[in-house]
């Protein structure tokens, strides 16, 4: 065993990436029997390629991001004699902002000194809100139609993307940036406390961007020929309307760097690399549920037909976290559906990295390899992709088409 370990350490230079991930003895043995990939001539690094054949595709899921033009609703209202604190409408940023948004909502709930609260909804926002409220000393009952595993949250992709379709710049107004930054920084710290836990609920992996031409900085200036906007249409009509706030936290979130040709292990002329934080849904849900029930939380399976039913709950303070369902339940037409679809390949722990190329993304996580095909007609829709689309039926053919597009780039790199 000692000799084998020594031998493995020797090979780490060539396969640093695969080697670093092999943290258990069992994995080490597996690697000893599978030789690490050998760099192509002229290359310093090689990666185990992600297998993207259609036989690996085991699931296709759809979800609807609840984009709210003004940003998440964190307002309060009273129904009967109940204080309702809203916490919904996080677009494609629900997971990423979950802790910070919960902190704001629970703070407002605590302003009336409740001993116990109700949380409506058990997606990532509801469950995180419930656990944080418990950490702050409250007794919590979650009322929800489904446990987190069957909510839309579980049909996301699982990357830390805190400003993905989270608001539109104009309707959100100038103050939103500060609130967003507060929530993003709080969440980042909370996720950091989950790194390295059993089952890897949160982890970092390398994320590669591949390009046929030298990558350009994205510009987001609006098309002056388009005079319509959210203000006239009730939905955004172009990318420049979306709030992009990530630069506010660039001091903590690793940037993307250009790779020199000898460090680009892919079959594409140009590559960038960034460290990306992501969430493994099964272990993350297990972690939250274990804490929730461990702290004495109660879960009640039930539906709500109208907000008036909140006033029938025994708790005087209610935090409402129903995500896209709030569009109907709260009759809030400012919640705009943004369809998203992911395919899932069998987990490939030997190839734990993500790649995007020609609008197709692969994200290899402990819970599977998420596949997204963002190619559209018309092309390059960007943030507008899926806007206004509330069809939640998956389309497997779109994922298979995406796998075909990205497959050639995953072949061992041609010599530089």
């Amino acid at each position, binding site marked *: 065993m000692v000799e084998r370990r020594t031998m493995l350490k020797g090979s780490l230079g060539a396969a640093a990436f695969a080697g670093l991930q092999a943290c258990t003895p069992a994995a080490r043995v597996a690697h000893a029997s599978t030789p690490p990939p050998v760099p192509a001539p002229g290359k310093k690094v090689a990666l185990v390629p992600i297998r993207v054949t259609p036989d690996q595709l085991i699931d296709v899921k759809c979800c609807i991001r609840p984009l709210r033009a003004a940003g998440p609703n964190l307002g309060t209202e009273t129904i009967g004699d109940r204080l309702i604190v809203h916490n919904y409408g996080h677009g494609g940023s629900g997971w990423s902002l979950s802790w910070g948004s919960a902190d704001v909502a629970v703070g407002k709930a605590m302003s009336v000194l409740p001993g116990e609260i109700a949380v409506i909804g058990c997606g990532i926002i509801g469950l995180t809100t419930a656990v944080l409220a418990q950490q702050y000393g409250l007794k919590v009952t979650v009322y929800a139609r489904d446990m987190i595993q069957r909510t839309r949250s579980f*049909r996301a992709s699982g990357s830390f993307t805190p400003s993905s379709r989270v608001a539109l710049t104009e309707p959100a107004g100038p103050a939103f940036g500060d609130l967003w930054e507060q929530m993003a920084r709080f969440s980042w710290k909370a996720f950091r406390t989950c790194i390295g836990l059993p089952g890897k609920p949160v982890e970092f992996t390398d994320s590669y961007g591949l390009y046929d031409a030298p990558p350009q900085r994205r510009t987001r200036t609006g098309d002056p020929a388009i005079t319509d906007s959210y203000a006239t249409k009730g939905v955004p009509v172009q990318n420049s309307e979306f709030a992009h706030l990530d630069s506010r936290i660039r001091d903590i979130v690793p940037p993307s760097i250009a790779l020199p040709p000898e460090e680009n292990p892919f079959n594409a002329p140009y590559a960038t690399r960034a460290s990306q934080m992501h969430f493994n849904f099964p272990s993350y849900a297990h972690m939250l549920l274990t804490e929730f029930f461990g702290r004495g939380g109660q879960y009640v399976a039930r539906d709500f037909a109208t907000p008036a039913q909140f006033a029938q709950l025994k708790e005087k303070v209610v935090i409402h976290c129903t995500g896209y369902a709030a569009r109907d339940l709260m*009759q809030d037409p400012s919640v705009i559906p943004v369809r998203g679809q992911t395919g899932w390949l069998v987990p490939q722990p030997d190839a734990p990295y993500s790649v995007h190329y020609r609008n197709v993304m692969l994200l290899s996580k402990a819970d599977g390899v998420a596949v997204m095909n963002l190619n559209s007609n018309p092309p390059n829709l960007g943030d507008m992709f899926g806007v206004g689309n509330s*069809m939640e039926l998956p389309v497997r053919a779109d994922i298979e088409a995406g796998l075909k597009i990205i497959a050639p780039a995953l072949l061992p790199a041609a010599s530089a």
Partner: protein
Amino acid sequence: MSMARHLARALLAAGALAVGAAAPAPISTRQGVYDEAQAQAGARLYATRCAMCHGRMREGTYETPALQDRFIANWSKAPVKNLYDYLARAMPQFAPGSLKPEETAQIVAYLLKANALPSGSRPLPVDGPALARIMLEPAAAPLAPKAASRTK
């Protein structure tokens, strides 16, 4: 909470349904609140507007609710109006608000029939106050209150 609902609760608690209560008395879905033609029209609509997500046999998926059993339990002990309004506002999810009132009533009738609730001689109404008086109850008789609790 509506007056109808208060009444219904009191009646249900007493184990007696709409017998000699003050007008307008609540009615139960066990009393034949839709007619066959309406349910058949609803079945045709279901096939084209609902089945692609909820399944041909209303079986649902892991992600999309089935439209029987637990579904009926979830909407029970409340006016049919709740279910009607929800369908009218939010379904089909890819085109919410696209069902006409009579179509919504037809689909509700179909779902009641599919869940073994009997038809009657008159169609399910589309007007709010009338729908608010009809309480949704499953076909089976309820268990003893203790055993029926779903909160643990």
